[in-house]
Structure formats: structure tokens, C-alpha cells
């Protein structure tokens, strides 16, 4: 029995039915399917790791924008829990505004639920404007707000008129959709409707790009920025790590959108293509091969001799600078195995970096991805709509007649499309060898069961299973928050990542504790990796 059957065998019929298509053991050479079920409702009661729509909208996409005051309209919990928990770093811009350290909430009380909270929200905005003088105020709603019917959009419109600010409301009640993913989409729609394209100051640079889906966790975005600036790119905006309204409002004037986390932000890239004609390119700045590939694709897209030359120069210099460290860490990590369970793109992105370090991925899964994140963008037309994803607004974007630009000739477009991930991404599964496991929406029990069966040396996930894993004797590294470390992106980040892994695996404490499978006769462990026997 393989690990999949082993794990599923512990479920009752109903759960078995809902979970079986979310777990894959890759066996394409034997004609096995590479199709996976994803983005469907979590099974109640079995401790999904997923968050809610509000978490996706406020916590992930909107929250990192440093110069907007984001007010959580709801009871205190939601605001409190999303206060500084994502480690999205930001520094104040020239205007000195940086609200990242703040948590703003309307702190709704029982009376507000009974009599409506819009009055309180209106006052809260007034107070925020008076105290903090933001140019932009965002409102994110929580579960009860949608149910009691506070019209946050009307309040926002009023506030705009009264205070002369931009005020956008996001109806991202926690119960919408099946995970954070719905919240990303709602946030993207809001940014597209209200912010992008609201400022026509041109970037005034030859190679102007936006970096989408980079949230600057642990300073990732800053490392990527460093590399791109060295080559000569002008970064117009970053969505949304260390991002600002000022930058995002003029992002439509860049020459190319780079998409790092496709899951959370591909909507914006698509909508900007429709409205402004901007092409987008899937990139990955995690892992040497991936970075180099992405940088070369970018140079090829702009098709400029000097740029290509400079790209190669920078790549050579950067690689040389980290080569020794990387070789050393690889020597310590070669042959180790890893499991990854994060978000909607990192489980894929980090496999490139793990390969650089000689670490093999035995299991990978996403928390809130859709099928295309696993299988490649081309499956989108085949994804069936269901009640949950129909509830998230699909914005119809029209071509902006004044600002629409065509960047590539059809021939060039077709040519490039064949050579790079231009407006596409191949998904995670294609990059994983047969025999490895892909698990969507991994839960508490499955984490434990797969760990015992596959015995990865390192499990990359988040805080919720960190201590479960460590109690079991397995090294856990948080790939959401980087365990207070980072950056991991870019060339220099890769070295830090290698260092953190070696540091983790070599901790003296591990020698004093025994993982359960070494204690117990491993009847279930027979399917595990032979290197651990």
C-alpha cells in the first residue's frame, strides 16, 4: 500500500470521498493521472490549515500596502489576529507614511451588530483621517458585517467626498469562498477598480516593470529589487510587499508585469492585459536556476542587446559571489528530503532552491491553490465553476481606449510564448518526479501521517503544524514567515536559506530526541524513503 492509500484508509467513507482526489502519487510513466482536485471546500472538523477570505484580502494583498490605513470593520479578533503576523516588511516612503505597524479596527460590540455598524465605521474613518492623515483608507469587512448588511461601499463613497481621500471598501467577509484565495481575488478587483490607472505620471525609464505577487516577507522583495536594479530595470510598483498606493496607481504605465505568486495576483495581471495591453511574464526568484531563467526571459522579452549583456554580467557576478557558500551548504544537505506545504505557489518555487542544495522533494502541496497552480494555466478552461467560486465577483475589464498599448507583434508574441512562461505557468506537478506526492489542503492528521510514512528530513509549512512536527522529531521551517529569518529570495537569500537548513538540521537537540518511527517497529513505514531505513 502506498502512502496515499495508507492515509486515506483512516478516513470514513464520506471523508475518503472528499479527500481522495486531493491526494496524488505521481506515476505518469505508468499512465497515472496528473489531475488533482483543488479549491473546493475544506472538510469540516479535520483541521484544515486554511484561513478565510478576510485573511486573503486584508492579511495578504491589501495589508502590506504601507501608506494606506486599512480599517478592519468588525469585532476585535480579526483585526488583532492579522496585526503584524505575516512579516511583510515595509519602510516609509518619502512622505514618511508607513502604517504597517498599526492595527485599525472598529472593534464592533454587540450593540453595533444589533443596530448596525456603519455609523461607527463612518466615525472611525473620520478619526483615522484626523489622526493619521492618510491619502487612502481601505475598509475590510468581516463575517458579521456581511450578515447585518452594513453598506461599507456607501460609507466609503461618502468618506471620499467628505475628506477628499481615496476610500475603497472590500467585502471580504470570512465565509466567502473556500479559503484565502477568494480574498485575494476580491482585493485584486478592488485594486483594479480603484487604484491601478489612477495616476498617469510616466515611469520615464526604458525597462519599467511591475513585480506582482511579491509580499516582501522577511525582505524578499528588497533582494529581488536589488538584483533588478543592478541590471537596469526600473520597478514601477510591487504588489504589494512594501508597496504604496502612489506606485500602484501608476503601475499601468510599466512595460511588463512580472508575476511571482500567480495564485494571489494573476487576476491583476490578466485585467491589466485586457485594459492596458501589458504582457505578463511568470517569474520565480527563488533558486539559482529559476532566478537566472527569469532574468534571461525578461531580457529576451525587452529584446535589447545591452540589457541582455548586462543581465549576463550580473548573473555571472552574483553566482560567483555565492558559489562557495552554496557549495558548502549543498555538501551538508545533499541527499536530504523535504516536504512542502504552503500557500499557492511557494511549494513549487522552493523546489528549485532545494534542488540547488541537493534536497529532494518527496511531498508538496498547496493550502489554497487552484488546479492551474498544480497543473498549469492551460487547464483553466476545464475547471468547473461551483457555488463557492461563483460567489466571488469576476470583474469584466474593458480595453482602455486611451491607454491601451501593444507591446509585441503577434509573431514576436507567438515566438516568445514558445520560449518562456509568457502569460502562462506550467504548474507544480510538471516539475515533480514520479513517486513523489502532491497533496492539496493538507490537514493536521495528514501532516502527521505522511511525515511518518515518507520521513522527510525537513517539513516546510507554517506555525500551526510546526510544533506537531517538532514534537515528532522532524525539523520544521516556516515558509510563511521564515521563522524570523529571510530574505530567502534572490542570490543572497539562497545562501541564508541554505544556512538556516544546515543550522536546523545540525541543532544538537535532535541527537537527544528520537522520532517516533525510530522508536516503533515501522510496519507503516515500509513505503517510506529507503534512505531512512
Amino acid at each position, binding site marked *: 500500500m502506498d502512502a496515499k492509500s495508507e492515509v486515506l484508509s483512516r478516513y470514513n467513507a464520506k471523508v475518503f470521498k472528499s479527500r481522495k482526489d486531493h491526494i496524488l502519487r505521481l506515476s505518469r510513466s505508468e499512465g497515472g493521472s496528473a489531475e488533482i482536485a483543488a479549491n473546493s471546500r475544506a472538510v469540516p472538523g479535520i483541521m484544515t490549515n486554511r484561513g478565510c477570505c478576510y485573511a486573503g484580502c486584508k492579511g495578504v494583498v491589501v495589508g502590506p500596502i504601507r501608506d494606506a490605513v486599512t480599517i478592519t470593520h468588525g469585532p476585535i*479578533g480579526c483585526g488583532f489576529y492579522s496585526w503584524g503576523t505575516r512579516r511583510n516588511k515595509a519602510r516609509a516612503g518619502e512622505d514618511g507614511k508607513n502604517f504597517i505597524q498599526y492595527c485599525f479596527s472598529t472593534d464592533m460590540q454587540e450593540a453595533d451588530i444589533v443596530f448596525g455598524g456603519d455609523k461607527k465605521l463612518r466615525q472611525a474613518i473620520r478619526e483615522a483621517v484626523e489622526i493619521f492623515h492618510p491619502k487612502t483608507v481601505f475598509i475590510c469587512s468581516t463575517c458579521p458585517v456581511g450578515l447585518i448588511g452594513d453598506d461599507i461601499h456607501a460609507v466609503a463613497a461618502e468618506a471620499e467626498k467628505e475628506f477628499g481621500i481615496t476610500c475603497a471598501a472590500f467585502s471580504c467577509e470570512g465565509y466567502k469562498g473556500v479559503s484565502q484565495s477568494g480574498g485575494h481575488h476580491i482585493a485584486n478587483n478592488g485594486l483594479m477598480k480603484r487604484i491601478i490607472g489612477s495616476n498617469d505620471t510616466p515611469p520615464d525609464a526604458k525597462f519599467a516593470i511591475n513585480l506582482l505577487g511579491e509580499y516582501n516577507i522577511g525582505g524578499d522583495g528588497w533582494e529581488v529589487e536589488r538584483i533588478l536594479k543592478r541590471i537596469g530595470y526600473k520597478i514601477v510598483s510591487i504588489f504589494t510587499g512594501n508597496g504604496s498606493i502612489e506606485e500602484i496607481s501608476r503601475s499601468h504605465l510599466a512595460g511588463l508585469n512580472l508575476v511571482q505568486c500567480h495564485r494571489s495576483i494573476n487576476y491583476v495581471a490578466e485585467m491589466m492585459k485586457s485594459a492596458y495591453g501589458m504582457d505578463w511574464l511568470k517569474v520565480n526568484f527563488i533558486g539559482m536556476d529559476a532566478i537566472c531563467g527569469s532574468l534571461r526571459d525578461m531580457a529576451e522579452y525587452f529584446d535589447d542587446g545591452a540589457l541582455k549583456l548586462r543581465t549576463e554580467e550580473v548573473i555571472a557576478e552574483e553566482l560567483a559571489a555565492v558559489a562557495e557558500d552554496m557549495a558548502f551548504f549543498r555538501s551538508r544537505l545533499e541527499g536530504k528530503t523535504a516536504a512542502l506545504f504552503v500557500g499557492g505557489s511557494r511549494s513549487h518555487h522552493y523546489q528549485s532552491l532545494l534542488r540547488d542544495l541537493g534536497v529532494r522533494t518527496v511531498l508538496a502541496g498547496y493550502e489554497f491553490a487552484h488546479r492551474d497552480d498544480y497543473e498549469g494555466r492551460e487547464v483553466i478552461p476545464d475547471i468547473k465553476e461551483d457555488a463557492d467560486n461563483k460567489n466571488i465577483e469576476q470583474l469584466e475589464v474593458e480595453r482602455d481606449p486611451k491607454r491601451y498599448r501593444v507591446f509585441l507583434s503577434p509573431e514576436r508574441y507567438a515566438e516568445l510564448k514558445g520560449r518562456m512562461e509568457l502569460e502562462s505557468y506550467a504548474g507544480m506537478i510538471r516539475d515533480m518526479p514520479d513517486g513523489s506526492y502532491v497533496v492539496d489542503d493538507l490537514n*493536521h492528521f495528514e501532516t502527521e501521517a505522511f511525515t511518518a510514512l515518507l520521513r522527510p528530513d525537513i517539513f516546510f509549512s507554517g506555525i500551526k503544524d510546526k510544533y506537531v512536527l517538532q514534537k515528532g522529531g522532524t525539523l520544521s521551517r516556516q515558509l510563511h514567515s521564515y521563522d524570523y529569518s529571510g530574505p530567502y529570495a534572490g542570490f543572497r537569500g539562497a545562501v541564508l536559506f541554505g544556512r538556516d537548513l544546515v543550522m536546523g538540521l545540525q541543532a544538537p537537540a535532535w541527537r537527544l*530526541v528520537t522520532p517516533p518511527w525510530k522508536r516503533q517497529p515501522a510496519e507503516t513505514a515500509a513505503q517510506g524513503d529507503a534512505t531512512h531505513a
Partner: protein
Amino acid sequence: MSSRIVNLNVNPCKMCMPLGVVNAFYGVAGCICLLHGSQGCSTYIRRHMATHYNEPVDIASSSLTEEGTVFGGEGNLIRGLDNLIALYHPEVVAVATTCLAETIGEDVRAIVRDYLAGRPDCRVKIITVNSAGYSGTRYEGWFRALRALLEQTDADASAHAGVNVVTGPLSPADTRALKRLLRGTGLDFTLLPDISDNLDGGCGAPYSRLPAGGTPLAAIARMAGARATLEAATFVPEEASPGRLLEEKFGVPLFRLNMPVGLRDTDAFLAALEELGGSIPAEEREERARYLDAMVDAHKHVALGRAAVFGEPDLVYGLTRLCCENGLVPVVAATGADCPALKAVLEEEIRPVAENLMLQRFSVLNFADFDDIEAAVAANGANLLIGSSDGRRAAHRRNIPLVRCAFPVHDHLGGQRIRVLGYAGAMRLLDEFSNALISNLEASFRKTIRDRCFGGREGSAAAGKAAGSNRARSATHPCFSEAAGHSFARIHLPVAPDCNITCNYCVRAFDCPNESRPGVTSRVLTPDEALERFLRVRESMPSLRVAGIAGPGDALANFEATAETLRLIRREDPEVTFCLSTNGLLLPLHAARLAELSVSHVTITINAVDPVVGARIYSQAAYMGMRFRGEAAAAMLLSNQLAGLKMLTDLGVVCKVNIVLIKGVNDTHVEDVVRKVKTLGASIANIMQMIPVRGSAFEHMPMVDNKTHEALRGRCESILPQMRHCRQCRADAVGLLGEDQSIRLREAAPAALSSVPAAPGVESPVKVAVASRSGVVVDQHFGFAEQFYIYESDGLSARLLEARRVAGKNAGCGGCGNRPLPEGPEEVEAGGGKIVRALEAVADCGVVVAMRIGDSPSRQLAQKGISVFSTYDSIDKAVKDAVLRCRGAAAADSRFL
């Protein structure tokens, strides 16, 4: 309720009710929680608890989606219960509602009743708790959970000799300590809840998904038959009190005590145990003695502490009492919960201790957020924060240590091992408080003492005192405080005509734009006249705070006049701040006398600290009857400047150093100057671009561009604060910065341009553009002008045609240097555009009159055939003079640029 505006919570000091429920149920054996609502609640709460306890925290969710909100969540809850029970085999499941379930009105009790009715074999005890996030905080959630547990457990009321001990939120380590104590008393006890193992487990035993520790359900059932309940929670709401329930329902007597934090409350707790027949272990008595000893040891440190205690009601009360019994004054005690009862008892506790140390101000805040707390911390001068790690942002901003001893601790390890209970806990806290205060004291001791006793430098105590009051005066000095520049006025008294050095950027005959000298265009006053002018201006200008002497020569080169002026004014006005600017050559001679004359602020222009560089700036210096040239002159000037600066700062005089930035001469040297003057005690530096003056040695030197200038200021900022709001005032300026009124307030017309040649006959009138803000005086720099007054003049009369705004200028901005200049290339371009727009605005004029004008615009105007005059005078006069001069003298006087 605090004075806070209450609609916006800025940085909450509380968490929501479901978190409290889950937290308490982690102290029940074999129990797992399921939150009925959106899965985000479970995820967020797991994340927060796991980070604090560094332990697995598993909370199931019914994962309600939009469909559930419309059709009810019963189906999800039932499936959730099925799956949870099948996978975890719990003894107890706690179903707690969330905002979502409560708002849609889910009747979880009924759903669970039906659920169990349909599953007769199910042996799992399912407890339901109503816990909408908007109905209370973690504190109330904790007690609601325990109360529901007692309400819904099948009670075994048969009487027994045991004692119930119910606590509010405690750390696992504190719970363990409490258990050890209870065991030591020999009493038969039930502790509810008991999170000691489940949220602080060991490594070694196989990990169990189901929390195995905690109070067993059977023991909970027997609580109904106990002899008494001790409820160690002062502020638990009656309707949520587990002890009250046991009393009302089963007649178990309730003794409510304070949480045993600190000496008094631990004593009381032990006394209660003793009263119930427990024997207090000898080691507790020893521990008490040790704590007393520790209190004696710590008093000298903690008495200097001014604490801000924040968190949940019981803990805030306990910590406040602990602080008070140690003479550490809690100047802020705050809870984020709504607990009005807390205020009176806290005030009663704090007042005597505060009064004992002559502290008038302390704040007790209810329903507070960190915005309120931080404001109170600042207002009351707290120097120690005590509470959860959520205070770290305030701690960081205010540079105050934070002792983390409450949930949640998210940025440090050891949340599970917090100790506050009992004598041992108190001892540990006392050490932590003392050590935090000691570290802070040690880190700042030298500086504090130096500032207090030596005025920031080695020197006399009197100087130290002077330094303090002199620094305080900076707040109303427009040149030393940007804010003061908008509201306080100064008067410059031109009593010092002579100068003793020759600078290459200066032509003595004319206004020196670099060092604020008005040259010959204004009258020099005698000390008596100066006093008269001062008194007259003071009468009409209530905002006047500063009297300064800035030339037109060097204040010290005319020392007798300067000293006499100051003496006369001081006799009439004991309050006004005295300020003086000098090249510093004679400072060593006069520094002590200046301090005696109560000069509190001195500006010294120091352009170099290296004689080689200095020799390129100064051509000669007259000192003690000798004339020095070249490097000798520079060396002497520089060493006198630096020695004088040191003497002044030792005397507590606040010193500003002006540096004229000269491209290719001292531009790479300025940072060295700033570094050097910093070590000698200068408070602020003012780096100014040199404006080339026609006829001076540096006539053809280029100006440093704004971007380089600003970048340099930026680099120097890390060494010494930079003055960015300098307007390069005149030596006879009066009023607010940038709004000079000296013309209006002059007693006689200046003799400046009166010796102009007579008009050579009548000619057709010329259009003259005047850079002026007031419309009365030529008082604007050409490039900064927001508008030009366009006059028509034939040299005999002048007629105003229009006030013409410069395109694209916002009123009130004017690029007047009171904000950082632009850095990016786009903005620099825009800055250039400013000049272009000014040039466009005057394109149809034959003459431009401005107070000052840069080299490049001056050249550009000349190329267009527009004559340029730089002066400071009433518009009418300046316009006529300019036209006459323009016509009459082909050889325009080199006074004009």
C-alpha cells in the same frame, strides 16, 4: 472610559472571546475544540496560541461558507463533529460559536442535542459555548467556557471533602506551580482548568494529537459536591462565574480571592487554604522570607520605576498591587476589556504610593487601546512597560523596556513559562523589573548625569543649569526650532558694522547673501537706537521672542557695541532670548562674557576645519592688531572658531554652526566639519549653498546643485541635526522667518539707493517685475517667488499693473527650504521647471527686481536683455531706482548682480 475617540481602535489591547474559550478548554483532559464559523477563526487562533506557547494548538472548524450563512450551518457542524470524533477520539468536544454563527443565530445547543439524540452510542461529552467575538474578550471567554463546562457536565453532587480551585488565564508554568502548592497543602483539590501539560508538553513521549493532560471530566463532575470553591479572579462577571454557578446550583460556598500575585494576595490565598484545613508547606514560608529579602534588595532600583501595566483585568490588578507593594509606581494601569469596576480599586491602590513619591499624575484606563496607553505612557513619564508582547511597538518607539509577562508573547520564547504567581513568581517579576530598570539606567547613566550636572559637557553646575534653560529656549527660537519659525518672531539689530576677516565669497560693500549681511543698504544703529527699535517692535509684535545681533559686520569685532546693546535690552526685558552670529575669530576672547550677558544661542560660521581648505575660502584675518594671510590666517581663524565653540558649549550656550558650501572648495570637506563641531558640542548644523556674488573672488564659481546639497545634508543628518528651514535672513530682519517687516519698522528711510544719478529726461515707461510676498517690500528670492508684482515706471513714479502668479506654484509652498528638497531625477527636473516658469512669468518685462537671485537665472535674464537688480527695499523706491539706474548708468554699479 478614557478620553479616546472610541470608534477607531488603534492597536488593540485585547483578543476575542473564542480565543479565551479555546484557551480554557485546553485545560480539560481529552478535550478538543471546534469553532462553529468561518475557518479563519480557527486558523488565526491556532496561529496565535501556537506562537505564544510554542506547542501544537489544534482547533477544528465547521468551515462555514456562504452557503452555510444562508441555509444555516447545522450540516457543517454535524459533519465537523463526526469527522473530529472519528479522527481524534476525544472525551470532550467543546463547540464554541463565533461572530458568524451568533449573527446568523445558530442554536448550537439544540443542534448538539439533536446530534447526540441521533447517535445513542456516542460517549463524547459535547459542551457548547456562546462566544461571539463582539460580546467580550479573551478574559470573558475563558470564564464563559468554564461556566458552560460546569453547567453542562453531568454533576455528581455527592458531598466530599475536596476543594475546588478555579483560576482565570494563567500560564502553564504558573498552573504547575499552583498545583505543586495545592498538593503540598495536603488538601484534596480540583484545579480548573489545568493547562500545565497540554500547552507546555515535554519532548520524548510519543506525541498525542489529543491533549492528554488537563482536568478530567470526572473530577469536574465532582466539583458540585466540594466543600468550597476558591475562585482566584477578582473581576469575573457574575453571570460568567463558575464558582457562583456551583454555589447557586449546588450550594458549594464560594470564596473569591485576588489572583495570588505579590505578597499580600499570596498571603491571602495561603490563608484561605489554611482556613480550609490545608497545611502550608515549610518551603512556602521560606519562599516568602526570600521574597521579603528580594523586596529589600530591589527597593533602590524599583523605586525609580514608573510602570505602565496593561492587560486583562485580574492580571493588571495583581501586577499593579505587586508594583505598589514594592514602591514601583504604576503611572499607567490599563485594560483593553470593558471592566469599569477596575478603575476605583486601582486608583485606591496607586494613589498612596504615587503621593509618597510626590507624583501627581497617573492614569487608569478602561477599554483602552495601545494608542491610549502610549499617550498615557508619554504623558506620565513611564519608564517600564509590563504586559504582553503587544506592547513592543510602543516600547520600541519610546525606548522603554518591556517586561513580557502576559499572553500573548509573540516575539520572544517562553510564553508558556511565564511566572507571576506566588512568592516565587513575584520574586522573578521583581528581578525582571529591577534588571530592566538597571539596564536602562546603566545605558543612560553617564549621559543623564552629564546632562543634569554638567549641561551636556564637563563644566560647572551653573553651566549645566544654563544649558537646560538655554535648550528650552530653542523651542521659541525660530532659527533653532522649525516649528517656532511659524509662530515666534525675532529681531536682528544691526549694531556691528566692522568685520575682521575677508571671505572670498563676500564683497563687504554689499549685502552678503551668504552670511546674512546687509552691506550698506541699511543703517547701522547705535546701542541706544537699537534698544529703542527693540522696544518699539516688541510693542507691535507680541510674538517677539528673540533679539539677535548678526552684523552687518561681525558681532564680536564690534564687541563693545554688541555688549552694550545686550545689556540695555536685558535691563528692559529679562525674558527675551539673546542670539548672536559670528565668524568666531574673537570667540575665545569673549565667550565667557557672552554667557554672562545671557546669550543663549550663538551661530558660528565654520566653513572648514583644515587650514589648507580654509585658506581657499578666507584671504585674510585681522587679529590683535596683526594682519594674517593665507594658511596662517585660516589656521588661526579655524582654531579660534573651534576653541570658541567648545568654550561656549561648556558654558551651556546652544551653538549652531553655519557652513557655506562651496563647490570644488569645501564640498567634500563638509562632513569632516560637521563631525568635528559635533564633538565640540554643536547642537545643529546649517549647510547653505554659496551664492556667487559679483565682484567677489568667487564670482564665477558655480553653485552646488540642490540635489547634491540635499544629499549632503542627508549624510550629515546622521552626525548632527540639520537646519533645513534657513532663510538666510538679513542682519536687520524683523518678524517671522520669511516674512520680513524690517522696512515697515525702520525709523528712517535707508540711504541705500538715494545717491542714484538723476533721471536723464523723460522716457517711455518700463515694465518692472518685482519679487515680493508682501506687495510692499522687495522681499523674495527670484526663484522662490510665488508671484511677481508687475509695475510700470519711468523712474519718477511707479504704477502697479498687476500681481502675476507664477504658473504651477502652490500658495504657501514656494520651495522656501523648510522641507527636504527633492531627490529623484523627476523632481529635480521639476525644480528646474520652477525657474523656467519664473522666467516665463517675467518675459515681457524690461527689469526684474528681487531680494536675491541665483547666478543661472540672472544670466538667463541678461541674455534676454532683462536687467536684474538685487535689493531689499520698499517696492516703490526699488522700482524707481532700478529704472533710473538702468537708464542712467550704462556702467551699472556692481552692487547689483
